[in-house]
């Protein structure tokens, strides 16, 4: 089924504007997606009608806000097919979700000489927290290498696994290259050695159907703002038994059962990990974003984005001086590239001058860029509301820019 993209675009007010005298083409969706009117309305609707602190007040508004808040938890559970609502923890974002696990599970269970395994294509947020943990625990951070196409070298991954491997933390889909990693096989392989597996789903959850029970990962993290939802809200999924084995992350209200100056007992999951008043408005609005995705259908979104990826890949490969970076067989709708003899920053600024928004730079993956001997790339990432005519606009702009140095 092909989507009625015009109808979808009508729901996104931000898309209907000119930038630098040209119609905006928003191709920076891997950084954050735009928000449909329903999500914007849900945020303001909450403040207009329902604002109240949750899980406490004995009044109608508090009860309503609590119900809506917990409805989102249930919707997230459905979205990733978790076993139960309590396995869903609200955080500030993917970064906080990773830090939470590194500083609770990691601190409790890692000891000297243990190994944490990550890949060479991780986002900095899936490198630094583990690096900090390994430094503290005298554990070892091991890196799975990446080939010239931008894919994990599976044989090397298998060789790195051993009884010392305590945690495998891997990006499901590369933000810089779009590569879809073979996480199902990787999880199974790591489990044989008794490792816990953390999946960074920041990029994958908006494009692929995720079933945490089928994948059998121990943790999954992602951010609402890359899923048409509000900024400042992240999700941490964890298996009940693993979450229960972990000490709390932050101390405060909500996360306790009983407090006395002698001893505090902690609340059950998920509340044990949600100290303080949470981001209520954005949590409630996130359900609307998930409804938006469900109504269109994940597979319809994926098909549309795949078509855009094929169309752009074939159009741009014709441009003289166009160098794609990351040409994995299995990819989501992200194209990273450079123009011969040109700096990605220059290309990005010139595209912006023609109304096209892309990301340029190292994409928070400096080790990956070093692997390819690059300072950075230009990254175009497509979403459900993008069109072939927008790609044509970029084809024209990139051709003109590339000609400066590639006559």
């Amino acid at each position: 089924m092909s989507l009625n993209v015009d109808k979808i675009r009508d729901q996104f007010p931000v898309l209907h504007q000119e930038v630098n005298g040209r119609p905006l083409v928003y191709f920076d969706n891997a950084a954050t997606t735009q928000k449909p009117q329903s999500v914007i309305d849900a945020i303001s609707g909450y403040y207009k009608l329902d604002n109240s602190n949750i899980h406490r007040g004995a009044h109608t508004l508090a009860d309503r806000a609590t119900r809506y808040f917990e409805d989102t938890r249930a919707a997230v559970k459905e979205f990733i097919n978790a076993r139960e609502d309590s396995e869903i923890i609200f955080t500030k974002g993917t970064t906080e979700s990773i830090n939470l696990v590194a500083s609770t599970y990691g601190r409790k269970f890692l000891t000297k000489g243990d190994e944490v395994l990550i890949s060479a294509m991780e986002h900095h947020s899936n490198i630094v927290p583990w690096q900090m943990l390994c430094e503290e625990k005298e554990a070892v951070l091991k890196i799975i290498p990446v080939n010239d196409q931008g894919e994990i070298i599976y044989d090397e991954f298998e060789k790195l696994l051993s009884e010392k491997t305590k945690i495998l933390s891997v990006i499901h889909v590369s933000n810089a290259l779009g590569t879809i990693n073979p996480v199902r096989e990787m999880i199974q392989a790591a489990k044989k050695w008794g490792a816990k597996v953390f999946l960074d789903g920041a990029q994958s959850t908006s494009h692929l159907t995720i079933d945490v029970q089928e994948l059998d990962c121990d943790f999954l993290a992602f951010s609402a703002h890359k899923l048409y939802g509000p900024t400042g809200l992240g999700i941490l999924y964890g298996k009940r038994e693993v979450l229960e084995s972990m000490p709390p992350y932050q101390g405060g209200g909500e996360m306790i059962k009983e407090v006395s100056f002698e001893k505090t007992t902690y609340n059950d999951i998920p509340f044990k990990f949600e100290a303080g008043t949470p981001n209520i408005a954005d949590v409630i609005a996130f359900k609307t974003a998930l409804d938006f995705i469900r109504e269109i259908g994940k597979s319809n979104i994926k098909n549309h984005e795949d078509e855009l990826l094929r169309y752009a890949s074939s159009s741009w490969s014709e441009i003289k001086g166009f160098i794609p970076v990351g040409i994995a067989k299995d990819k989501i709708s992200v194209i990273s590239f450079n123009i011969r003899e040109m700096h990605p920053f220059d290309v990005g600024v010139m595209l912006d001058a023609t109304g096209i928004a892309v990301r340029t730079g190292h994409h928070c993956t400096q080790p990956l860029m070093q692997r390819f001997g690059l300072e950075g790339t230009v990254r175009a990432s497509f979403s459900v509301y993008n069109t072939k005519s927008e790609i044509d606009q970029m084809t024209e702009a990139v051709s003109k820019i590339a000609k400066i140095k590639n006559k």
Partner: protein
Amino acid sequence: MSSVNDIQNEIIEEFNILGDDKESTIFYIMELGGKLPDFPENERIDSNIIKGCQSKVWLTAKDDNDQIEFLADSNTDITKGLISLLIRVLSGKKPKEILDADLFFIDKIGMGNIIGSQRSNGLAAMIKQMKLYALAYQTKQNA
């Protein structure tokens, strides 16, 4: 030799001709960058890198008969173009002129809009470094 303000007015005039079209403005700046004189390889050292710029910028200066000559380079053409404008205004001037210079052309040609707020800090860092060179030479002269 034209004064700092004369040169600034010339630049403003040139950018006025380009009008509001951001695309042609950027292409023009990149062209200017292409014309920047070659930077001496022996000066391409870490201590000549300006901190605070997102692009890599090297800047050095030499004292030529009480006038300061600036030499600079960058790994991006747009930044090179911006530096070439600063050099056109400030290079070959006496330390005092550089220190007293009010660089009004930056606002007048809408550079903030051209390079974006994230990179305006880098531009400020370049100007600061050029003024620091001028101050150092002035102090040396007075010593």
